[in-house]
């Protein structure tokens, strides 16, 4: 690739992106049912994700969402932005900074905002801001997307 910043629109079929541009935004409603489904699908049966007594026994307020469930859903708005093709994603990383407690009745609302963080010859880095109760729950949540994917 010889294109430089500002030339993104020159890629055939590729819309120009700007740093800071929001490419996707979505709120996910989690319930205990969501956690049980994720436990079964992933094979992660740690009881802190379905038993309040176990969670409270290790000093937690109650049942928490699996960190990998939060990571798994947080990338979905980006996948949708890419036309549903996750093959355009070359790298995805997160840091687990804060737990997401899922109340038995109220559940938990997790909001994802995906913004363009970096544009370079390799493509784009999409930075995810993932919040629960107005606090971020993932740090350094970054999705690397190959050039020509959007």
């Amino acid at each position, binding site marked *: 690739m010889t294109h430089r910043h500002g030339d993104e629109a020159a890629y055939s079929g590729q819309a120009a992106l700007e740093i800071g541009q929001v490419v996707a935004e979505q709120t996910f409603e989690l319930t205990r049912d969501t956690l049980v489904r994720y436990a079964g699908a992933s*094979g992660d049966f740690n009881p802190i994700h379905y038993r309040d007594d176990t969670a409270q026994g290790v000093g937690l307020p109650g049942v928490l969402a699996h960190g*990998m469930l939060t990571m798994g859903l947080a990338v*979905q708005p980006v996948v949708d932005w890419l036309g*549903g093709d996750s*093959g355009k994603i*070359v*790298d995805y*990383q997160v840091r687990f900074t804060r737990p997401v407690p899922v109340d038995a009745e109220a559940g938990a609302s997790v909001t994802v905002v995906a913004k363009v963080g970096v544009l370079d010859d390799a493509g784009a880095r999409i930075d995810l801001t993932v919040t629960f109760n107005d606090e971020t729950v993932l740090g350094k949540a970054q999705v690397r997307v190959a050039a020509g994917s959007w």
Partner: protein
Amino acid sequence: MPVNPELQGRSYPATSPYLVGREKVREFARAVLATSPLNLDPDAARAAGYSDVVAPPTFPVVVQEHTLAQLLGDPDAGIDFSRVVHGDQRFTYTRPIVAGDELTATLTVTSVKSLGGHSMVTAESAIADATGAHVVTAISTLVVRGDE
């Protein structure tokens, strides 16, 4: 028992092959609230150039889990699972996993660090298909809390 500082650089044998089933991909996709037809509909996946339904980006954790079990089950590693917190997670992809893939994974401990009484263990699990070609590498940092 502290984490064995000599763990750094250690590799474990490749896991036995994991055959990725179409219904498993669909089940996992629904569980992470994915809605892309490529995850659910084989015809949509084929139209996009894949041989079968495409697994969501975090599906490799299912295969990686078998390698982490090797590490956590190694008495010489000295990792007390009840003290482990998942610190961070990364996937670097050559291609997405698709149904029909037969995958093996090989874990290598790339770093062991001490930080304020805790240990940070970083493990990379390289996942390859039946031809031996790289598919994705899953990297986890586990924080092992020290004695209170």
